[in-house]
């Protein structure tokens, strides 16, 4: 039987506020355990939550970016369950009235654009952490993370493959960073994902029974976990079995999922509106202010890059995927006065290649955009060839010198003086009569030999166009 995979994602994006969602404690990562947890975060008797208005602004921003309905009034609810790292015995979340309603965003997979629905996005507080290491016969609790603001973004079950799920997750990841509402740091848990997967026979309209894979914090793991889970479900279904609705945990080390709890064991969270907090009202003024503050979004930016710079879709998508990368590219275009095509090639191929190899982000690039623009300027004005430029780039990567200084110091300036090139060519022709003979008798390929020799003799500095021209003239058949 042909099976269709149905995937929906729940993404937790940690909102990049300085203080927690309901208290004044800092949200900074990595502090000594329990040094960033105040009485409110500890859930001491008598304390009350007070909403950090910044999280409301951020959620509204997200809602507008995915063209969602942003609710006039949303309500915080208590989600009740006992766990040692959940200090109050309930999590403050949103249930019936989330701040962001139905929206959507477009993903691209293998050149195809697909629209994915976002069911809702709601605000909630994070729990603390249980520390199982370093304590004999007991568990440590670190409540620094308790009360950190999260935006939970729930998709429609619109994805049909692991590739689509990853594309969607990446798109949300890019978007929240574009909007400056999440730092996107997946190692620190600022961005993590639950995946709901089910299979159904191709053509069937009802959904199959789903399993939920919890808390996956990398794109690679999401993809692998989905592949594994699809296989697991397929095996069961094809053997005539049925899928149990359950929550499963992905073990990245073993690359497999295992059951955490089934539907029967699932908690009854007994949600009810939190009487300590007033409903959140979004004023028209706030809406207008957030709208005015909205940056150019990736899709719009991509279209502009295609239109203004005549980039192909793939390159434009890549460059627009990060705000920093897009800014870098545009700075280079403006300051180098080079053709956008040349700039985009250099940024996406050379620069991104080098950054990836060193595992650096664009913000951490050793070559800032203005210095990079100087290099491209020298390619455009033919001071150096593209090939030499790669050498210059190497030097720039490892020093703070300007492109011009490196070209000067290393003597890499292109030889455009036709007299000098002619002299080199004359000598090569004289030294290689056999090859001249071959070429003249019709072997076109030998032309490349002469070009190569000329470049070699000139240490790559001869202007390639000039070399071609002179060689053509000298070896006239």
């Amino acid at each position: 039987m042909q099976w269709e995979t149905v995937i929906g994602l729940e993404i937790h994006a940690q909102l990049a506020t300085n203080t927690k969602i309901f208290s004044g404690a800092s949200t900074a990562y990595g502090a000594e355990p329990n040094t960033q947890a105040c009485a409110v975060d500890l859930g001491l008797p008598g304390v009350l939550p007070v909403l950090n208005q910044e999280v409301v602004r951020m959620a509204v921003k997200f809602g507008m970016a995915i063209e969602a309905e942003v609710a006039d009034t949303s309500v915080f609810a208590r989600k009740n369950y006992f766990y040692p790292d959940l200090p109050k015995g309930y999590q403050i979340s949103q249930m019936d009235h989330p701040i962001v309603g139905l929206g959507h965003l477009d993903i691209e997979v293998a050149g195809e654009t697909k629209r994915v629905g976002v069911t809702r996005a709601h605000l909630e507080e994070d729990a603390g952490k249980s520390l199982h290491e370093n304590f004999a016969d007991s568990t440590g609790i670190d409540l620094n993370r308790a009360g950190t603001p999260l935006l939970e973004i729930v998709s429609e079950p619109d994805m049909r493959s692991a590739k689509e799920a990853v594309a969607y997750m990446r798109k949300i990841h890019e978007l929240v960073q574009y909007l400056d509402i999440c730092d996107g740091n997946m190692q620190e848990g600022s961005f993590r994902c639950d995946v709901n997967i089910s299979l159904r026979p191709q053509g069937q309209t009802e959904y199959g029974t789903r399993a939920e894979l919890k808390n996956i914090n990398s794109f690679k793991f999401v993809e692998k976990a989905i592949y594994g889970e699809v296989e697991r479900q397929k095996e069961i279904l094809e053997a005539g079995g049925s899928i149990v609705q359950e929550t499963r945990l992905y073990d990245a080390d073993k690359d497999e999922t295992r059951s955490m709890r089934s539907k029967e064991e699932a908690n009854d969270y007994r949600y009810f509106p939190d009487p300590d907090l007033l409903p959140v009202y979004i004023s028209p003024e706030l809406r207008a202010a957030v709208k005015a503050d909205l940056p150019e979004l990736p899709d719009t930016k991509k279209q502009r890059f295609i239109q203004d710079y005549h980039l192909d879709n793939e390159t434009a998508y890549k460059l627009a995927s990060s705000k920093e990368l897009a800014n870098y590219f545009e700075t280079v275009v403006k300051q180098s006065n080079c053709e956008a095509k040349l700039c985009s090639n250099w940024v996406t191929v050379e620069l991104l290649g080098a950054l990836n190899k060193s595992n650096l982000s664009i913000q951490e690039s050793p070559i800032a955009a203005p210095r990079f623009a100087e290099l491209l300027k020298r390619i455009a004005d033919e001071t150096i060839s593209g090939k030499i430029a790669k050498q210059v780039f190497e030097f720039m990567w490892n020093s703070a010198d300007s492109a011009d200084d490196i070209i000067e110091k290393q003597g890499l300036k292109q030889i455009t003086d036709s007299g000098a090139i002619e002299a080199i060519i004359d000598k090569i022709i004289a030294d290689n009569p056999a090859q001249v003979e071959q070429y003249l008798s019709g072997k076109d390929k030998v032309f490349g030999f002469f070009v190569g020799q000329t470049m070699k003799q000139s240490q790559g500095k001869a202007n390639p166009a000039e070399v071609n021209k002179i060689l053509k003239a000298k070896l006239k058949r």
Partner: protein
Amino acid sequence: MHTKTLTEISRGLQAGDYSSQELTESYLKRIKQHTALNSFITVTEDLAIAQAKQADAMLAAGNAPVLTGVPIAHKDIFCTQGIKTSCGSKMLDNFIAPYNATVIEKFNQAGAISLGKLNMDEFAMGSSNETSFYGTVHNPWAENTVAGGSSGGSAAAVAARLISGATGTDTGGSIRQPAALCGITGLKPTYGRVSRFGMIAYASSLDQGGTMTQTAADSALMLQTMAGFDTKDSTSAEQDVPDYSANLNNSLQGLKIGLPKEFFDDSLNAEMATAIETAINEYKKMGAEIIEVSMPNLKLAIPAYYVIAPAECSANLSRMDGVRFGHRCDNPEDLNDLYIRSRGEGFGTEVKRRILVGTYALSAGYYDAYYIKAQKIRRLISNDFTEALKTVDVIMGPVTPTPAFGIGEKTKDPIEMYLADIYTIAVNLAGLPAMSVPAGFIDNKPIGLQIIGNYFDEAKLLNVAHQYQQVTDWHQQTPQGFE
């Protein structure tokens, strides 16, 4: 000195008739003499003396706030920095809050002296103070009767003149009912008038801190200090605080008093009906107009309350899990054992009952039938009051069905106990302000007149209560043995 009202004490202090230290020492002595009432959980003698010395310095320097040097005490539900805050529970018997409730902070800033922490029903759940881990409070008017609850310690201590005034909290009648049973003046302000920060939550949407004093004038002084918006409590009201003492002497000529016919039906005890009628007659003499009003949904108040309050408390009390503070069982085997035994040992029967009721009411499949329905009833009850208060200035009625009942009399039957709050609970559901004013005696036991006002109309309530206290002396009666 203990016979003086809080207002008189304040005047004497400001005039230099006596020092706060003298006063404080004299009250501390009385507290020691009357430990049999069991009204205090903690007496903070050294701290009180230290505060009194500071207050005397402030008074000597001049410009001291009106409560400077006045000895009061707080219901043990308000968190006090460095002092045990037990909430009447074994669960918090070892809990020392690292911060002050906003109410405590305000009294400290006003220079008031705190003599200690007052007994109460466990987590404010009870109508007789019999659920306290620290034992039952005795009513100073009749030793074998209850002081009411949950603010029973506050009521008994003020009635016995062990303090000049006390804080209390009222979720379903917990200020008004004990005030009535102990013959003192109790004020539950509008929901949101007094900050709940640091006031250990029972039912967050109903809880409200208030005053328990001898007179309405005393209440005005205390409320003046307690009331106001607090950035730490999102549900506190951003409303100006009027001068509560300014209108006490306004004439009641033309005052429209509404009497809900549902309060005065056949189920009302005849002696209580007579006592309340007598009180209403005093108002007629002062020129008030009596109007019958109807609030058909009042009868649903108790069932609605006993869904909403337990639902909220079931979540509010989840933080008492033995992990970070409070009672922890010995040698827990695992996490479940830690939870089950810590909570099982730490909570008393009534608290457990309400947690279970609330958990049930919020459970999947029951939520709509109980919680949502109760919220709808709550809205209907609010609407009844709003409608009635369009035609009248205040609503009056009894506070309790009977005067103080015997200790142990109703502990076997929780429903019987819940009915003790039948006249007070609806007010909390509506969030309105209400008072209990001493209005006579039945069998030598005090009873109270309830006065309910419109939202944020505390000044009017105090005026109406104060005028009654100008023509009656019920509030000046002192129980035998405490003169």
